């Protein structure tokens, strides 16, 4: 029982809290983390040689970041933590992992997936130009590298991160040309009652907006992205303002994104069920009320299961660990699970208001010009996706992939998935949920061929 091998994948807020609960119950999990240090993306740590303090990196979230890192430090003696470790395949209960160029297979009895999320994007003309990055990427440049992505940056999209990252940049002395929010002001006002339930989180959001205003940083609502201008790199951004007028800004960098999407490739390889959440327009993992996936002995938590943010990730990480302890018959977990679910329900009210205040602009997929690249790995354009539907009869996303190579590249459709779904939904006049998701293939990320063979055949030169 306690000798079962339990593995947590990911060491962000969900993974760390799951580990904490397991350790408290006397279990010593293995934690596999792709990053060099714990924290996930949100509480990502800087390389030790950069000695900025917590408040500079995490602002209001500094105490939370510190608590999470400290908790993890206190667990170090009780867990087998493997950083810089990619899980590139999952077959039955075997994990194929790659660490420092060496491949290894470990078998597990129970698994908690806490694999996190990445930015969700919808392409616009010019988005592959050097200088256009995701919002999350812009924040990583700042947090872990003490850099701005450009000298004059425009922040564009629809995400609670939008005012926050713009504020972080401006506060650190980077020039913020403008913040362009694709959600209309009226939608924000309609979301107000729900937002108020967020308490301090909401007030912090207001603070960033007010700070930007008092520092004369332009914040526009209801914009429509037009085109990133430039030949070899970004020189400007064309967009349509709320009143329908064409505008142009000079800049050398654009950070953009429309919220997050879950990293679910390992759950997919494991055969877990998914569901489409119409509110966030995202695929999520189908979980029972306690963090169990549809596959026995596999649990999931955090943004890698459903996008609910960092605070909820800590709670759902703890929840998955309690569910696991219950399944191991290590005492009743009902009280803990009840309390965690109550807190998660309360956060959900705020989360759905946030989804409206920073709405996913699914209508933009329809407007992506035919000539615009959608799949940046394979260079597939929106027009090619539309012809795969019109001329070749692709009626789900994996057929479209087979016909025009969209999503077939090195990122396996993580970047172009939502746009491809949206483009096809518009052409077919169907609900996005009916088009399916790009199927995952192992390795979930590129790994050197030499590592896939545990012993490379001797006559092959790699």
């Amino acid at each position: 029982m306690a000798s079962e091998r339990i593995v947590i994948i990911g060491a962000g807020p969900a993974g760390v809290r799951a580990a904490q609960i397991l350790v408290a119950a006397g279990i010593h999990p293995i934690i596999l983390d792709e990053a060099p240090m714990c924290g996930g993306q949100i509480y990502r740590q800087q390389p030790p040689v950069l000695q900025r303090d917590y408040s500079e990196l995490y602002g209001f979230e500094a105490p939370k970041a510190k608590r999470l890192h400290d908790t993890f430090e206190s667990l170090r003696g009780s867990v087998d933590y493997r950083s810089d470790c990619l899980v590139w395949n999952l077959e039955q209960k075997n994990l194929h992992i790659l660490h420092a160029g060496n491949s290894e297979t470990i078998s597990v009895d129970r698994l908690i997936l806490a694999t996190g999320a990445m930015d969700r994007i919808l392409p616009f003309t010019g988005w592959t130009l050097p200088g256009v990055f995701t919002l999350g990427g812009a924040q990583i440049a700042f947090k872990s590298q003490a850099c701005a992505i450009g000298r004059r940056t425009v922040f564009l999209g629809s995400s609670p991160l939008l005012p926050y990252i713009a504020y972080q940049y401006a506060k650190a002395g980077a020039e913020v040309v403008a913040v362009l929010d694709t959600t209309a002001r009226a939608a924000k006002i309609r979301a107000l009652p729900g937002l108020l339930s967020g308490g301090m989180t909401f007030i912090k959001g207001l603070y960033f907006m007010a700070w930007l205003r008092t520092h004369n940083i332009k914040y526009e609502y209801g914009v429509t992205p037009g085109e990133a201008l430039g030949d070899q790199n970004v020189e400007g951004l064309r967009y349509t303002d709320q009143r329908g007028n064409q505008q142009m800004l000079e800049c050398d960098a654009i950070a953009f994104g429309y919220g997050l999407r879950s990293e679910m490739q390992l759950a997919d390889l494991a055969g877990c069920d998914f569901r489409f959440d119409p509110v966030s327009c995202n695929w999520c993992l189908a979980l029972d009320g306690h963090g169990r996936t549809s596959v026995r002995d596999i649990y999931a938590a955090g943004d890698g299961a459903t996008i609910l943010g960092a605070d909820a990730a800590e709670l759902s990480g703890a929840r998955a660990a309690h569910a696991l302890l219950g399944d191991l018959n290590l005492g009743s977990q009902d009280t803990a699970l009840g309390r965690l679910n109550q807190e998660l329900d309360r956060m959900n009210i705020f989360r759905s208001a946030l989804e409206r205040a920073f709405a996913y602009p699914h209508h933009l997929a329809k407007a992506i010009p035919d000539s615009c690249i959608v799949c940046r790995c394979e260079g597939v354009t929106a027009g090619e996706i539309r012809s795969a539907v019109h001329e070749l009869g692709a009626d789900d996303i994996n057929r479209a992939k087979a016909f025009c190579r969209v999503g077939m590249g090195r990122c396996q459709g993580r970047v172009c998935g939502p746009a491809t779904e949206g483009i096809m939904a518009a052409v077919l006049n169907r609900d996005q949920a009916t088009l399916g998701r790009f199927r995952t293939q192992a390795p979930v990320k590129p790994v050197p061929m030499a590592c896939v063979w545990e012993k490379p055949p001797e006559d092959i030169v790699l």
Partner: protein
Amino acid sequence: MSTSQFHRLGSPDRSRVRITIDGHAHECLVGDTLLTAMLTAVRHLRISECDGKPRAGFCLMGVCQDCWVTLAGGQRLRACTTEVKQGMAIDTTAKFDHGI
């Protein structure tokens, strides 16, 4: 127009690391990823095999795979998750097929 994409914030007190990009010497800092090291010197990482246009990465978190670069010896590295090392010689013009 500036010749680098990234812009360092503050005045870092870190030791230098020397690399070359397409034969030109550049200085970067200990703690830089290869992506940061390159983009604080130039504006792109590689030329896309699809459209022949320059690319400079996108997600910075090891997901989009847009930032694979080729070293002069042919070795390929994902620039946003690789720490820069003294003496790295990067060839941004290298043709990049579908293998890694």
